[in-house]
C-alpha cells in the first residue's frame, strides 16, 4: 500500500489509478438532449488522454497556462486534467466575467491556450485578444454559430481530440514522460480570487495542497466511491475544484453536470446527490420558494405542514445528532417524515444527502435549523482559496449555527491580539502568481496565513466563531465596536431582504441600505393586490417600507441584546432603487457586497441618511449584461427606525 500511496502524487496519477481499479464505475454524468449521458473512469481516462495528446499536437510546453472558461461540463474537467498531464497549469475562469475582467486574468497568467464553451465566450476572447500577447490557440466545445469564424487559431474540442488520437504513436511517449515528471511539488492549478479588494490574485496550489487536503477531508466525512455530487458552482471557485476534482479523484466518486444553468433544480432532483455543497443564499432561496408555495397551499396541507414543522423544530436536530429523544416524539417525527419532511426533501432534491456543507457567508440560525430539523445533515465549514478550502469544519454530531466548527485535520489555528484568525496547514497555497509582495503580506515565513477575518475560539467547545472581516470591524465615533456583517446577516435572514449594507464606521450611529428580494416581495404584492410595474416601483412602495421597517426594528431588538455590539442598531434606512449587481462592480462575482464601492457610488444617499432629509433624488449609472451603460433615476424615501435605548438597560442593571 505504501508504494502505491507514494505514487499518487498528481491528479493524472489518481485518474490512472481510478481507471485501473474501478474503471467501470461512473465518473461523470451530464444531462444532454434530455438524457443523462455517462462516462465511467476508463472512458474519462481515454477522453483526457486524447485531449492531452491533442494539446501536445498543438505544441503545448510544460509550464504553459491553459485558461478554461465555461459552465460545469465534463469536458472542462477533462481539459484541466489533460493540461496537468502535459505539465501545463489549468486556470479556470468565471464564465460570466465580462471581456475586460477576462483580459486582466488572461493577460496576467499569459495563457497560451484557452478552452471555452461556446460562441459567447469565443467572442469575448476575440474582443480582447489584442491585449493578450501570449495567446495562441482557442478550443471551443459548441460549434454553433462559429462556422464562419477564422479558424487559424480556433479549434473544435472533438477535433483536437481526434487529432490527438491519430497522433498517439507520435506523442504517446512524450505524454507518458511528462505525466511521470509530475510530483507533489508541481503546480496543480491556479485559481484567481474573486477580489473583494482590488485586482484578482492568482493563487498557486501544488499537488500536495490539493491531494493532502482532499485526502484529509474525505477521511473526515468518510467520503467513498459511490458518492454523487452535482457540479453547479463556478469552476473558477476553489470549492468546485476540490469537490469535483480533488475529492472526486481521491475517493473516486461521480461528478454530475447539469444540463444548463436554468435546469439545475430539476437536475438536482433527478440526481439526488449524497454529498452536497451550497452557499447560504442558495438554501435561503430554496426555503423562500417553499414558504411561498406553502402560502398558496390548501388549508389541510397548511395545517399539516405547520404541525409537523413544529415537531421537527423541537426534536429534529436532536435526532440528527443522535441524542436521546422520547419515544412519543420519535413516533411523531416518523409520521412527519412520512407526510412532510420526506416529500419536501424529495422536492428539494436533498433526499439522499449524507453530508451537506454551506460556507462563504454566515447562515441565518433559523434557516440552518430548518434544514437540520427535516433531517438533512447540513454542516458549516470555513475556508479560503489560500487554504485549499478547508480551515475549520463541523464534525457530525457537533453542528451549530453560530460556529464554523473545529480545525480540519492537520490545520493549526491561532488568534492574534486584534482578533484576526491565522492558520497553517498542508493546504496553504504556494504563492500569489507574480506577486511576491502580496504573498509575503499574507503568508509569513513560518507558513502562517492571515485570513482577514476576526473571530475567537469558544472555550467550552473548541469551535471557531467568526465575527466579521477583520478590516470591516471598525469603531464607531463613541468607541463602540462596529461589525456591519453581524447586523446585515440578521437582516438578510428575512426572506424579503436580499441584501443590506450597513454604514457606521467612525459615525455616531448606524444607517442601512436595503435591497428587497423581488421573488418574495413580488409574491406578497401579488397576494395583496399591490400593482407594480418595475423593481424600482415595488421597492418604493409604502407598504414595502412598512414591512422592512418592522424587520429592522426586530433586528435592532436582537442586536441590543449583544453587549459588545449594541451600538450597531440601525437608526435610519432606505430601500435602494436597483439591485446591487456584479456587472456594476457593486458585488463580486461570488455575490459578496463590495462595501467600499457601494459607499462611494451612493455617497449622496449615505449623506442623506445622516442628514435630516425625508427623501432624496438620485441618478445611478447601470451597466447592462452586454456592457452598454445607461442610467436610472429615482426619488427615495428615507425612514427613521425605533432603536432600543442601550443606556437604559445599563441603568436598570
Amino acid at each position, binding site marked *: 500500500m505504501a508504494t502505491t500511496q507514494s505514487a499518487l502524487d498528481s491528479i493524472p496519477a489518481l485518474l490512472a489509478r481510478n481507471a485501473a481499479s474501478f474503471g467501470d464505475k461512473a465518473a461523470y454524468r451530464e444531462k444532454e438532449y*434530455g438524457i443523462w449521458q455517462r462516462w465511467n473512469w476508463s472512458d474519462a481516462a481515454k477522453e483526457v488522454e486524447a485531449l492531452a495528446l491533442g494539446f501536445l499536437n498543438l505544441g503545448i510546453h510544460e509550464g504553459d497556462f491553459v485558461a478554461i472558461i465555461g459552465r460545469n461540463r465534463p469536458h472542462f474537467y477533462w481539459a484541466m486534467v489533460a493540461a496537468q498531464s502535459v505539465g501545463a497549469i489549468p486556470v479556470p475562469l468565471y464564465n460570466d466575467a465580462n471581456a475586460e475582467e477576462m483580459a486582466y486574468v488572461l493577460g496576467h497568467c499569459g495563457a497560451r491556450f484557452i478552452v471555452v464553451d461556446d460562441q459567447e465566450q469565443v467572442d469575448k476572447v476575440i474582443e480582447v485578444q489584442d491585449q493578450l500577447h501570449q495567446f495562441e490557440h482557442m478550443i471551443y466545445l459548441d460549434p454553433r*454559430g462559429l462556422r*464562419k469564424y477564422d479558424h487559424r487559431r480556433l479549434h473544435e474540442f472533438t477535433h483536437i481530440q481526434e487529432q490527438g488520437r491519430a497522433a498517439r504513436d507520435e506523442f504517446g511517449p512524450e505524454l507518458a514522460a511528462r505525466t511521470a515528471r509530475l510530483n507533489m511539488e508541481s503546480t496543480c492549478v491556479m485559481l484567481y480570487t474573486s477580489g473583494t479588494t482590488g485586482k484578482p490574485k492568482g493563487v498557486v496550489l501544488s499537488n500536495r495542497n490539493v491531494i493532502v487536503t482532499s485526502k484529509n477531508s474525505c477521511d473526515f466525512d468518510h467520503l467513498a466511491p459511490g458518492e454523487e455530487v452535482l457540479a453547479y458552482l463556478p469552476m473558477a471557485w476553489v470549492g468546485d475544484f476540490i469537490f469535483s476534482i480533488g475529492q472526486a479523484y481521491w475517493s473516486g466518486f461521480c461528478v454530475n453536470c447539469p444540463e*444548463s444553468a436554468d*435546469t439545475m433544480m430539476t437536475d438536482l432532483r433527478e440526481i439526488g446527490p449524497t454529498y452536497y455543497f451550497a452557499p447560504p443564499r442558495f438554501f435561503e432561496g430554496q426555503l423562500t420558494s417553499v414558504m411561498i408555495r406553502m402560502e398558496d397551499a390548501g388549508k389541510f396541507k397548511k395545517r399539516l405542514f405547520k404541525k409537523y414543522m413544529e415537531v421537527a423544530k423541537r426534536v429534529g436536530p436532536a435526532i440528527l445528532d443522535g441524542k436521546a429523544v422520547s419515544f412519543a416524539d420519535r413516533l411523531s417525527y416518523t409520521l412527519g417524515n412520512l407526510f412532510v419532511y420526506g416529500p419536501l426533501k424529495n422536492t428539494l432534491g436533498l433526499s439522499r444527502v449524507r453530508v451537506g456543507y454551506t460556507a462563504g457567508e454566515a447562515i441565518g440560525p433559523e434557516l440552518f435549523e430548518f434544514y437540520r430539523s427535516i433531517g438533512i445533515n447540513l454542516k458549516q465549514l470555513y475556508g479560503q482559496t489560500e487554504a485549499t478550502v478547508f480551515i475549520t469544519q463541523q464534525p457530525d454530531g457537533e453542528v451549530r449555527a453560530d460556529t464554523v466548527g473545529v480545525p480540519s485535520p492537520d490545520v493549526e489555528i491561532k488568534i492574534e491580539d486584534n482578533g484576526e484568525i491565522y492558520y497553517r496547514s498542508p493546504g496553504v497555497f504556494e504563492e500569489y502568481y507574480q506577486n511576491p509582495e502580496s504573498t509575503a503580506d499574507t503568508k509569513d515565513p513560518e507558513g502562517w496565513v492571515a485570513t482577514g477575518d476576526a473571530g475567537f475560539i469558544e472555550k467550552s467547545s473548541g469551535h471557531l466563531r467568526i465575527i466579521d472581516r477583520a478590516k470591516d470591524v471598525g469603531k464607531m465615533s463613541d468607541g463602540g465596536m462596529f461589525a456591519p456583517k453581524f447586523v446585515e446577516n440578521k437582516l438578510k435572514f428575512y426572506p424579503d431582504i436580499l441584501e443590506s449594507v450597513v454604514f457606521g464606521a467612525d459615525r455616531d450611529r448606524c444607517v442601512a441600505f436595503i435591497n428587497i428580494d423581488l421573488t418574495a416581495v413580488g409574491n406578497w404584492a401579488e397576494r395583496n393586490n399591490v400593482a407594480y410595474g418595475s423593481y424600482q416601483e415595488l421597492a418604493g412602495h409604502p407598504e414595502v417600507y412598512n414591512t422592512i421597517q418592522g424587520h429592522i426594528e426586530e433586528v435592532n431588538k436582537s442586536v441590543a441584546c449583544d453587549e459588545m455590539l449594541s451600538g450597531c442598531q440601525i437608526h435610519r434606512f432606505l430601500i435602494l432603487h436597483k439591485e446591487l449587481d456584479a456587472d456594476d462592480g457593486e458585488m463580486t462575482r461570488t455575490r459578496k457586497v463590495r462595501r467600499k464601492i457601494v459607499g462611494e457610488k451612493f455617497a449622496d444617499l449615505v449623506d442623506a441618511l445622516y442628514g435630516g432629509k425625508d427623501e432624496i433624488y438620485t441618478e445611478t449609472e447601470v451597466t447592462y449584461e452586454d456592457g452598454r451603460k445607461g442610467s436610472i433615476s429615482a426619488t427615495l424615501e428615507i425612514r427613521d427606525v425605533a432603536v432600543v435605548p442601550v443606556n437604559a438597560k445599563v441603568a436598570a442593571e
Partner: protein
Amino acid sequence: MNTMTDNTTVGYVTEDGRQIGGTMMEMKNITLRFGGVVAIENISFDIHEGEIRAIIGPNGAGKSSMLNVISGFYHPQDGEVWFNGARRPTMKPYQVAAQGIARTFQNIALFKGMSTLDNIMTGRLTKMKSSMLSQAIWWGKAAREEEEHRAKVEEIIDFLEIQAIRKTPVGRLPYGLQKRVELARALASEPKLLLLDEPMAGMNVEEKEDMSRFILDVNDEFGTTIALIEHDMGVVMDISDRVVVMDYGKKIGDGTPAEVLANKEVIDAYLGVSDD
C-alpha cells in the same frame, strides 16, 4: 416563360462572404384580391437558397398576405408560384408543409395546454409514417419512430436553449419564450424554407437580440432559407441579405439593405412625404 433565365439560377456572395445558392422560390406577378380590395398587386420577387430574405412595409402593406401566399394558405387570383424549379399548383397548406416549408405566426399559435416538448413534437407530424393506431399502442416500429423524432426534437431544444422549459405547459411561459417555442416547432419539420411572421413583435431589446442570434444560427447551422416579415428596421437591416419593400400591395423596392435604405420611394413610404 417555362425556363428560367441563367441569372436567376446563379447564386451570389453576400457582404460577409457567404455563398448563396440559386433561386429556390420565385413569385411571378402575384395579384391577390379579397372582393374589391387588392391586397397584393402584381408583385414579383425571388428567394435564393440559403439567404435571409426580409419583407418589410408599413401596416396594411400586404406583407402577411404575401407570406400566406407562399405558405399556400391564400391562393392568388393571378400569378405563379415557382418552387424548386417547378410551378406549384394550387395546394393545401399541409401539402406545402410536406414540400419543406414551415412557418411561425404573428399571433402565437401554439397548443397552450401542452408542454413545450409536445408542441415541438407536433412539428414532426409531417415526418411520421406509422398510423395513428400503432402510435397509440406505441409498440414496435411506432415506438422506435417516436424515439427518433424525440431525438431530433431534443437537438432543437438544445439548439434554442429551452431545456429548462421542456416540460412546462406553453401557456405558462412568457411571450418571448413562446415565440422561441414556435420557432422550435417550425424547425422540427426540418424545413428548407422557413417563414417567420414578425418574429420580434412585442419583444424587448434583449429578447430581440437573442432571437436575431437564433435566426442567424438556424440559417448558418442548418442552411435553412429564411423569409421573414419584421417591423423593427434595425433588426431587418442587421440580419437580412436582401429586402423586399411593399406599400399598399405594391412592391416599391428590392435589394440589399443598403440599397433599400437609399431608395427614395422607401424613405417616402416610411417617413411620409411632405406636402410642399
